[in-house]
């Protein structure tokens, strides 16, 4: 139906741009990960697996990677625990205020990441708002140090940032649950709980899956929250990459770690997509 000229005009420019500014850069990342760096700090273009071997042999990198996955897992779990009930409440119980309440979740979703991270820094600091409050109420006498600069602070901050991300797909899938199925379940005598467990929950699983993937992937790649509120014990894998591209100057090793992260993320996306399709079909 559309002319060939029209088709080319809408496909070729984006394809060219995307190839130049996304595909080529991602391929460069791939190439760099097989190169090495000389003692004079120049990049040597001989292909080898040195970086990957170093990655596997270095216990620090592995332990930080596992810590990042634990933090990402915790954030995902908390984001689901906060996001699912909220989405359920909005979808099934909010009635007329639905629209307003939905907007209230959207606002923090798009509001500045840095601003929200900074807010937690001022709250959790040793002379921060929370410590001030605890001392004001005479619950503690001295500032509690571990609020800020700990994995706890990272999990809290990122849960705050990614809960709305998790909420959205869950809410969308709950809105798609056919209401007559819910009514049928009630009419046939099922309790609200078993209606939820047997009807609503299974139908909303694709949304849960999508939400969980967002929270996990975005947390795994985060390096700003650890710098802002994490301190030394809250360092994540991306922070190692940042330092390798900065002061430590080892781009090839940094590229190798990034590529592993990229592969992890892509395989996760692939797996959830598969699972989601399976869930939707059945």
């Amino acid at each position, binding site marked *: 139906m*559309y*002319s060939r000229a*029209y088709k080319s*005009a809408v*496909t070729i*420019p*984006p394809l060219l741009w*995307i190839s*130049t500014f*996304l595909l080529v*850069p991602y391929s*460069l*990342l791939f190439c760099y990960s097989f190169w090495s760096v000389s003692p004079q700090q120049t990049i040597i273009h001989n292909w080898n697996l040195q970086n990957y071997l170093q990655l596997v042999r270095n216990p620090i990198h592995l332990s930080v990677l596992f810590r990042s996955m634990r933090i990402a897992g915790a954030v995902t779990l908390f984001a689901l625990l*906060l*996001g699912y*009930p909220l989405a359920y409440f909005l979808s099934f*119980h909010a009635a007329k205020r639905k629209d307003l309440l*939905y*907007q209230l*979740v959207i*606002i*923090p*979703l*798009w*509001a*500045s*990441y*840095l*601003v929200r991270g*900074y*807010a937690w*820094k*001022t*709250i959790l600091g040793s002379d921060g*708002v929370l410590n*001030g409050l605890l001392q*004001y109420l005479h619950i503690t006498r001295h500032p509690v140090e571990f609020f800020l600069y700990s994995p706890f602070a990272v999990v809290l901050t990122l849960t705050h940032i990614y*809960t709305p*991300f998790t909420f*959205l*797909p869950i809410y*969308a899938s709950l*809105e798609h649950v056919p209401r007559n199925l819910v*009514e049928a379940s009630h009419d046939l005598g099922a309790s609200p709980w078993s209606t939820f467990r047997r009807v609503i929950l299974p139908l909303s699983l694709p949304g849960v899956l*999508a939400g969980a993937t*967002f929270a996990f*992937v975005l947390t*795994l*790649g985060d*390096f*700003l929250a650890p710098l*802002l509120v994490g301190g030394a014990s809250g360092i994540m894998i*991306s922070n190692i990459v*940042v330092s390798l*591209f900065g002061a430590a100057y080892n781009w090839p090793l940094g*590229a190798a770690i*990034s590529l592993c*992260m990229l592969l992890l993320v892509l395989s996760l*996306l692939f797996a959830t997509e598969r699972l*989601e399709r399976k869930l939707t079909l059945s």
Partner: protein
Amino acid sequence: MNVAVNSSRAPLLTVYATLVYAFLYFPIVVLVLYSFNGSGVGGFPPSGWTFDWYRQLLQDGPLWDAVLNSIIVAAIAVGISFALGLPAALALDRSQFPGKALFRRIVLLPLILPGIITGLSLLMLFVAIGMKLSLVTITLGHGTALISVATTEIFAGLQKLDRAQEEASLDLGANHWKTFWRITLPHLRVSLIAAALLIFTLSLDEIALSFFLIGRDNTLPLEIWSRLRRGITPEINAISTLILAFSIATILIWYRLRTRTALAEEAGAQLLASTLEGEHS
């Protein structure tokens, strides 16, 4: 039995949802509150209401330079992401070509990939072609990453478009270009404004990508970031409050514009969910 009747009674759930909202808004409220606090960033209770930090902010030259930089970057990023996102959305909506699914996936990749990966990859590109890091590299980065948002937003607008008028235009002898300029584009106007607002705000707030592509001149988030490393002052609360106010205003306008044409509940969800879905029907 009516679901709505039985559903209105869920006190526990209501309390829980209220707590989640409190959690979402607590830091924001604290931040704003302490921007007026005479005795500094921390402590409790806040004491001594003051506008001093805002006054200090007004006289802060480097900060306003950064604001201006950010606005320029965001405006051009909107231009770039539109110039490529609009054709991409048209391609996805109404033409079949080999590799369409892959095309869609790659366009949307920056939306779901952590910023650090896209940022580093772009850094390698700019170094490889010998391009000096500056606001230009940041702008190119933002523009490229935000094509994903432009595409999904405009695509959603196209899906809601009534095709009858376009078909009528074609039947009456107008070609595709004429139909596009005279019918499609005017009907997309609201979607386009909404998309531009969202992209502008996202670029203004972006930090992960900019972190790697920064040259000598700072964007606003990077200027704030470099100050944070030196220690925190209520002046940062003040500028953060202004950023928040601006973001919230734009997001609300975006949301209103979008829901004028879309189903309310689908607006944002579609954008995010479509990155995980294979093909839209």
